[in-house]
């Protein structure tokens, strides 16, 4: 495609639409949900709307597969379909499927009746998908906002719970602040290089002289994105927001938007060859791992515990960003995938055990779960073991690839911090396992049988976690090919 001609030609080409096909599909289905909602009987509507959204996200998966056959740039070089974007599209759509399946029964149990819930999930997915294919900073910003605004609202969906509104408002205020940082960084980057296209910026920065403004721009963008992935020291919102938001939403926002933001970070850090990358990430990764794990040690609320754990995991993931591109990119992609699988699964279990109004979310409520619901306890145990990083779960290879990538870049100090942190982390995950299996329940807290939707969601995430742990080769090879593509 000749870019000069395209610029002149204001009407987009048909091929352009293929480049954003999954986003179009998701948006259309989101709108269908919005339109159907008022037309339907109040009591019946929940499941039907959920099913429409589910079909939408499955259709997005198909669209992604279709799109993968037509790689290339679109919309005046603003989006690019490559194996990297396809990877993250697939991940976002898969997480969306799992989250919608989890939400089915959650919404019913909570008595939340709102069709726009599913629409917002789909709109959020639009933003997240777009983030991974956008190669232009302003478009990335717009995509980031689409995804963020959806999650702000989703966080406040337990309307009767004050804590949920608090969560939503807190997330919104701090999140807007962070996006402003990002935008400021974009502006400075434009000032430094004269472009907002990642490819052009990359060429400009590689050509030799790096202006001071570029360093500032990278740092500010990193602040904004660091907030979104809950990396320390921009992490303080995480525990409160995760505690208040509905559990399936936490499962969603701790995985899909994070994956998308990591995709953006990968593009900025590696494709644009951001200056000052290594030391910046070194510090933030070390801080996130340490503060996240230390914070998690003292938590009694399972959702808060996993919030701190997600901060720590953002830290492990960032370690890969400090490594060399050809090892770091595949390692980061693999980590994002396996983290998404295990975390969305863990929150699916938590949202079921929580019961009405999410009453059962403290460690005490999990006492004797091994006896009350052996299957759920076993599944949650596998997710927790994966979060620890025990072999034959995806979490093990995720850590393995990240740390070996860092070792190959001679970041021995960071690896040592990471390994020590993993040892500390095993304590609090184990604590939950111990509580489930080795304590008797003080009072019999009922656990409802596993409904079909949740069962499917768990099967998908469990299957993915184990698959990544037993046969990591295919996913890693795919990710490695992507890195090779970038290196050109």
């Amino acid at each position, binding site marked *: 495609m000749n870019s000069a001609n395209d610029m002149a030609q204001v009407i987009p080409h048909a091929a352009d639409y293929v480049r954003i096909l999954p986003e179009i599909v998701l948006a259309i289905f989101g709108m269908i949900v919005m339109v159907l909602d008022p037309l339907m009987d109040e009591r019946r509507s929940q499941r039907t709307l959920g099913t429409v959204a589910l079909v939408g996200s499955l259709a997005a998966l198909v669209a992604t597969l279709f799109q993968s056959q037509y790689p290339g740039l679109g919309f005046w070089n603003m989006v690019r379909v490559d194996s990297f974007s396809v990877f993250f599209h697939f991940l976002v759509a898969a997480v969306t499927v799992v989250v919608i399946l989890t939400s089915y029964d959650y919404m019913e149990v909570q008595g939340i009746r709102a069709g726009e819930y599913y629409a917002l999930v789909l709109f959020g997915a639009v933003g997240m998908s777009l983030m991974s294919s956008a190669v232009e900073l302003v478009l990335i910003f717009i995509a980031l906002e689409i995804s963020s605004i959806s999650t702000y609202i989703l966080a406040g969906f337990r309307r009767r719970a004050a804590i949920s509104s608090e969560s939503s408002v807190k997330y919104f205020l701090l999140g807007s602040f962070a996006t402003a940082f990002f935008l400021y960084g974009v502006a400075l980057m434009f000032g430094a290089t004269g472009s907002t296209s990642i490819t052009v910026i990359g060429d400009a920065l590689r050509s030799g002289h790096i202006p001071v403004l570029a360093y500032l721009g990278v740092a500010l963008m990193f602040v904004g994105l660091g907030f979104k992935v809950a990396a320390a020291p921009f992490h303080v919102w995480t525990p409160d927001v995760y505690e208040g938001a509905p559990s399936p939403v936490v499962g969603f926002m701790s995985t899909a938007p994070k994956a998308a933001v990591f995709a953006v970070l990968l593009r900025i850090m590696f494709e644009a060859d951001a200056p000052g990358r290594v030391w910046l990430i070194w510090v933030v990764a070390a801080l996130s791992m340490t503060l996240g794990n230390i914070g998690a040690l003292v938590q009694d609320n399972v959702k808060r515990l996993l919030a701190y754990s997600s901060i720590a995991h953002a830290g492990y993931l960032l370690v890969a960003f400090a490594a060399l591109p050809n090892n770091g990119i595949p390692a980061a992609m693999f980590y994002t995938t396996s983290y998404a699988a295990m975390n969305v699964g863990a929150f699916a279990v938590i949202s079921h055990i929580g019961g009405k109004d999410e009453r059962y979310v403290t460690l005490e409520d999990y006492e004797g779960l091994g006896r009350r619901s*052996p299957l759920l306890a076993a599944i949650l145990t596998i997710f927790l073991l994966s979060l620890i990083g*025990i072999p034959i779960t995806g979490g093990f290879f995720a850590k393995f690839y990240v740390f*070996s990538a860092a070792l190959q870049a001679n970041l021995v100090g960071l690896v040592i911090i990471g390994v020590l942190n993993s*040892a500390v982390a*095993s304590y609090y995950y184990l604590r939950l396992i*111990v509580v489930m*299996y080795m304590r008797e329940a003080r009072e019999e807290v009922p656990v409802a049988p596993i409904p079909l939707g949740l069962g499917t969601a768990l099967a998908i995430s469990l299957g993915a976690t184990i698959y990544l742990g037993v046969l*990591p080769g295919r996913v*890693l090879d795919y990710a490695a090919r992507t890195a090779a593509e970038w290196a050109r």
Partner: protein
Amino acid sequence: MSTALDNSMLTLVTFIPVAGGILLLLFPRRDRDIRLFALVVSLLDFVLSLHLPVHFQRGQTGFQYEVNNLWISNPNIHYHMGVDGVSMWLVVLTTFLTPLCVLISWKSIHERVKEFFILLLVLQTALIGVFVALDLFLFYFFWEATLIPMALLIGIYGHERRVYAAVKFFLYTMVASMFMLAAILWLYAKTGTFDFVSIQAAIRNGQVENFAGAAPWLFLGFFIAFAVKVPVFPFHTWLPDAHVEAPTAGSVLLAGVLLKMGTYGLLRFNLGLFPEQSRSNAWWIMVLALIGIVYGALVAMVQPNMKKLIAYSSISHLGFVVLGIFSFTQTGLDGATFVMLAHGVSTGALFMVAGILYERRHTYEITEFGGLATPMPVYATFFLFIVLASVGLPLLNGFIGEFLVLSGAFRDRAVYGILGATGVIWSACYLLWMYQRVFYGKVTQQVNMSLPDLSGRERAALWPTAAVALVMGVAPLLWLNAIDPAVQTALAPFAQLASKVVGR
């Protein structure tokens, strides 16, 4: 000899238990059927594992029954399994003890029976895997995999302070194995393979860059992981807790097999990969082993709790193994391997007899008993037989190994042999003293008058151990002729080292 059966034997023996465990998942909760099925699976595995020694090519060095398939291409991980004389017998020890564990848990486990036997079978697979894995990654995987079922067995089915003991056990070994993982990853980064044989060859041929600088740390990384498992003296504090709180079957496998993972690791990896560092660090490891022998024995002597006494006796006995390994003599290593097997049988049996008593009285306190020989004569006989085997009475299994270890240690340095020999005396003291307090004299407590003697099932669990203890004592060559070539291979670099020193 390379038939299809030989090639798949190790895979079968390793994974049959876990396959049985998965089938158990589908069983309805009828406890009797579950127990029977677990027994059948573990017996089947035992019978199959006997194929290994029967068709083992004695006198041949290197690994046998090897399988080597690519598992994951990046990182380069192979499904590489194989056994030599040492690991083969440890596999058979595991498969031998597991059916006995099922028998001994028949009645004592009456809640969550299904989960118990599933965990037991999963644990068995992991234990066998540790001994047969020849790929460092596979080894690490099985090594860690033993932790979870064992910790759950202790934590769910144990006694009062079970949770504390389970968590302590888990954290201790988990943290220690992190060091080993770091060492493994370093080796992988430099050699591009996890394969034990290839790494060993690369190190011997000097193809690993920066090896000289890193080797002492790598040696320590492996050593710490194994030393905690053995346990070598200052790392032993998890063991008494774990043993006292574990259910009987857990203790049997813990003492019988799990501890051997540590000594096996020392022999296979520390000696196999780092002969020079083993040589230079041997003196302080020998000292720790001697401290372990004497300290374990002295502490065992004053224990009021029978199970704790046996636990400390394990520390003492395992000290012999470490002493034998780091004597770098043929007899010492032969003896060390033999002690591993003998200790597995006799200490496993000791925990079983202690468990049998606990089932009847729900206490391990020695003072609660006395004069038990009167109400339980058969039990007393078995107990005495096992105690004598453990003490090292000639013609029983304990004697052979300890004798070989001590003569090896003596050859290395006389003072090691002399100090180590006191351990034999101590063990006679604490075990026989305990026996006297529990069985001799008049029955001190009325409840003990009416204790039932051994049931048929309990006899079925004890007879095999007694028989094997006797056979091992009378015909040790059956075992040693397979162990010998493996030990020679392990010692080959030391002979070269010695000749290098002499040549200089």
